[in-house]
């Protein structure tokens, strides 16, 4: 009889299908995937598989992007849209987070607001455009309002769920150690709900971007949405694609920043991930 360790060494190794691949590999796969898509796009336009009218080549798009970047139009558009997103988003967070926590903790507050939220929740922000234009015109306020209306409910629901899901055992432990209501709220419920709230904010940030773009496409003179819509009027698909790419990159950047903020706010999560 062979010793168990020898058996293990000789037996054919079963490579599991589900593995956590080393990060360096994953990065390479992602890079290859991006390059493949770009190559396919370039090939399709270069070899005439699709007409440049329907899909301009990546080189043309890059050239248009360089031109828009050098004359400042692209940066102005990105800045205009970003400012609207952040104004609306922070307003939404400032109202929805306290309200969500209050709804999770106090039954009467929940009873008061939940019918309103059930009614508002199914409405896409785009349906608010006619009313908000009537109320606020087509200026900045209306764009900010659309972002606010499109994102606050998602922040609220994420906050509510996160707060409800805080481990009641921790609340019990805190009270057993002599904590009052205020301490339980500040030192147990809020930090306990924080990961869920931040995850909700990240999702809502992407939603906020889609809100501002739809608002800008319908009525605006500045911003990425307006840039795309004007280019469409001229039939200039290169600029449309520049706009679309800029949206993707801007939201990715915002997401990366949000991810950093998340780690700074939750040092204990950072410690957990290290292990």
């Amino acid at each position, binding site marked *: 009889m062979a010793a168990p360790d020898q058996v293990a060494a000789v037996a054919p190794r079963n490579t599991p299908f589900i593995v956590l691949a080393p990060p360096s590999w994953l990065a390479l796969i992602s890079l290859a995937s991006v390059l493949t898509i770009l190559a396919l796009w370039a090939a399709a336009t270069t070899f005439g598989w699709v007409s440049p009218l329907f899909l301009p080549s990546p080189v043309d798009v890059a050239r248009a992007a360089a031109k828009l970047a050098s004359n400042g139009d692209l940066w102005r558009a990105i800045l205009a849209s970003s400012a609207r997103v952040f104004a609306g988003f922070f307003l939404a967070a400032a109202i929805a987070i306290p309200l969500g926590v209050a709804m999770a903790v106090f039954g009467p507050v929940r009873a008061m607001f939940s019918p309103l939220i059930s009614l508002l929740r199914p409405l896409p922000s785009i349906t608010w455009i006619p009313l908000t234009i009537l109320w606020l015109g087509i200026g900045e306020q209306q764009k900010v309002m659309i972002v606010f209306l499109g994102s606050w409910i998602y922040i609220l629901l994420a906050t509510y769920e996160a707060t409800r899901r805080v481990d009641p055992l921790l609340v*019990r432990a805190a009270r057993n150690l002599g904590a009052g209501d205020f301490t339980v709220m500040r030192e147990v419920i809020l930090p306990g709900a*924080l990961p869920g709230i931040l995850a909700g904010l990240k999702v809502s940030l992407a939603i906020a971007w889609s809100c501002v773009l739809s608002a800008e496409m319908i009525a605006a003179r500045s911003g990425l949405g307006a840039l795309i819509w004007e280019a469409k009027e001229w039939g200039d698909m290169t600029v449309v694609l520049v706009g679309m790419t800029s949206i993707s990159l801007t939201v990715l950047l915002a997401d990366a920043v949000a991810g950093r903020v998340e780690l700074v706010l939750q040092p204990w999560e950072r410690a957990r991930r290290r292990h």
Partner: protein
Amino acid sequence: MSAILTAEHVTKSYPVPGGEMVAIRNLSLDIAEGEFLCLLGASGCGKSTMLNMFAGFTAPTTGRVLLQGRPITGIEPRCGMVFQSYALFPWKTVQENIEFPLRMRDVPRSERRAIASSLIEMVHLDGFADRYPGELSGGMQQRVTLARCLAADPLVMLMDEPFAALDAMTRQVMQDELLRIQERSGKTIVFITHNIDEAIILGHRIVVMSARPGRIRTIVENPLPRPRHVGVQTSHAFADLKAELWAQIEEEVMQHVAASRLAEHA
């Protein structure tokens, strides 16, 4: 022997669909100051329910629970709970977790530091003060919980199967440390377990409980000498006591098994 914690004819029942479930029936118990009392029983015997009433998390349906002769009416910080699942605050470091009860009592910062440091040393966690609970093993987390409970300086420590989730070796180390801490601090401890060995190693007295509804079956004085050590497990006296306790519990367990078989066939 003056009682610090008392249960007086305590009955606890919960409404269930189609009637009520009696978790504890007419249980009376006096726990002496400085005593290490083990509540021993199979799952479902209501021992956790009893502990939750001592902590004031739930109230008895009838009867009274008294701390130093006064009824416990709400959550009672003077009865500190050590939870089986640790219940440490994941967002606080070891030091901050241990200082938490001290801050609740407005102990000044420098004094808090000193107390926390000495407790960290006491539970052998030197060098881990700035770690988060998520970075520690189960045994280490349970030490932090113990230190946090000691920092609160409660009159009674309530321990709900605190070592059940630990591996056998870590459990022995923790039992030894708990014995040492109890000897040194003289704290009254009410310790729940379903492990006969653990009850014999730790308890001054062992309360054997019956299940469904929870009652006291018998109370056994533990004759093993003190200060005690986990090495006591190899003694004849230990084996005799274990045999005695097992005879009591076997009947309980068999009844329980028979009852559940009956329920299956019904």
